[in-house]
């Protein structure tokens, strides 16, 4: 077995080695600065926390790491993270799926825009948390309410961005399509939609950030699980280390989801000219 796979592995390694070296070469400057910056911040955190504060007021990175390890081992952290992430993603995806088509239609059809624009402009200034109590009364304390709150947060950001995208389409593109035989519907499908995609994706990225903010607030007020609940509940026990775990998790999760989203965009939608 080893004899058969040996040479193949060697060949693979030979092919991989130069690519790896190349990658390391690219990594050198930018990514080293990246890593140094993160390490520097953790060191600063440690120094400030241990020098000027009592651990229960401002726990250092080592204390947080210790508590974090315990919470990972007990499965508590995974539970909070997964439920928050589920609420965010579900609400974010439903919200985007509703808002992007609605924004496309509102941007393209003046009558539809005239009907719905006042509501879009009105409700986008009403924060989703203002709706928390009515939503809980109408839909109960369960997951539906929390997901709906995220949907609400996502909808207006994606909607407004999509409408802006439609208004930014070069008129020449629509005219070109018309004289090449596109009916209004085909023009919508083959020009308006792809030309607006970068704006939709940008709106989604922004909405993702707001979804993180909203889920925490919603979980603080009406939940018994999730990172927001973890942060708010730990306050009662003066468990600042757990609060910091929540904060670190939120930042890391946000960063990872954003990177993943950007990866998907670059991988599958680069030709639509996404805005970086």
């Amino acid at each position, binding site marked *: 077995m080893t004899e058969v796979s040996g040479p193949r592995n060697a060949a693979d390694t030979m092919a991989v080695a130069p690519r790896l070296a190349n990658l390391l070469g690219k990594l050198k400057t930018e990514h080293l600065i990246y890593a140094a910056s993160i390490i520097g911040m953790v060191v600063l955190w440690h120094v400030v926390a241990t020098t000027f504060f009592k651990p229960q007021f401002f726990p250092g990175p080592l204390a947080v790491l210790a508590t974090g390890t315990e919470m990972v081992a007990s499965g508590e952290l995974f539970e909070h993270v997964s439920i928050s992430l589920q609420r965010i993603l579900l609400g974010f995806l439903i919200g985007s799926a509703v808002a992007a088509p609605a924004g496309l239609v509102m941007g393209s059809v003046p009558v539809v825009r005239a009907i719905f624009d006042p509501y879009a402009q009105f409700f986008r200034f009403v924060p989703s948390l203002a709706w928390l109590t009515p939503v809980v009364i109408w839909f109960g304390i369960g997951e539906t309410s929390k997901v709906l709150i995220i949907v609400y947060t996502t909808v207006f950001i994606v909607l407004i961005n999509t409408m802006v995208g439609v208004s930014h389409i*070069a008129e*020449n593109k629509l*005219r070109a399509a*018309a004289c*090449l*035989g596109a009916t209004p519907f085909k023009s919508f499908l083959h020009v308006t939609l792809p*030309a607006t995609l970068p704006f939709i994706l940008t709106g989604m990225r922004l909405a993702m950030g707001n979804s993180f903010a909203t889920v925490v607030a919603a979980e603080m007020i009406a939940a018994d699980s999730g990172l927001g609940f973890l942060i708010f509940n730990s306050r009662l026990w003066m468990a600042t280390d757990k609060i910091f775990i929540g904060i670190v998790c939120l930042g890391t999760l946000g960063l990872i989801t954003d990177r993943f989203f950007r990866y998907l965009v670059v991988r599958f939608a680069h030709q639509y000219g996404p805005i970086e």
Partner: protein
Amino acid sequence: MAQDFLVARDVSYRYAARRGVQAPEVLSNFEVALTEGEFFCLLGPSGCGKTTVLNLMAGFLPPTSGTITLAGQPIVGPGIDRTVVFQSDDALFTWLRTIDNVAFGLRMRGLPAERRHAIAREYLHLVHLDGQENKYPNELSGGMKQRVQIARVLATDPKILLMDEPFGALDAQTRSRLQDELVEIWRKTNKTIVFITHDIAEAILLADRIGVMTKGPGSRLGVIIPVDLPRPRRRGHPGFGEMWEHLNAIIEGEEGDET
């Protein structure tokens, strides 16, 4: 004499009134009659409404009064018998590869991918873009983008090409090459071409007839000058300089009215 093909009769155009104040007429009593297969250049000072004429012919705008007909049929909107090459390359679909840009009109007609790509490849060959079919517009030079636009409108086999200063934004070298190639394409395809330009030399190099517009507002077609210089034309050829002087005098006379 060949039959009239694209005919504009007593065409006026003005933008919609604003706050009850009537906008001045861009065009008034614009008249022209093109014959099938001719290369017609519309020449005139900037701001005289050349692009408006083209937009009316394309059907993007309705005339305020008067009619435009193509082979006897009134023009009421955009149609695949009159396709437009725009001055700006923002008319290209940046998310589509070159070949899919060229095949766009065929796709709208419902042709299967294989057929439309085969046809698109022929037209890419005609505009000397072999091997560029998988590139996106943003990966092409300015001259290449205009070639894609030309291939794209030809692929739908229109009766008329409407070209709005298509080489206006290109460098002199590229412009000169594309002018030669356009004449070559015109000869191969026998299309009728309406070509807008404010460049006198370009008009002389390309046109069978040059229509000079009067200055706006309320401009119309002033004189029509036939160009009977032998093709291929070069700037140094006998007769070119005289014709340039003649046209320049007409346009300066137009602009001179201002002062």
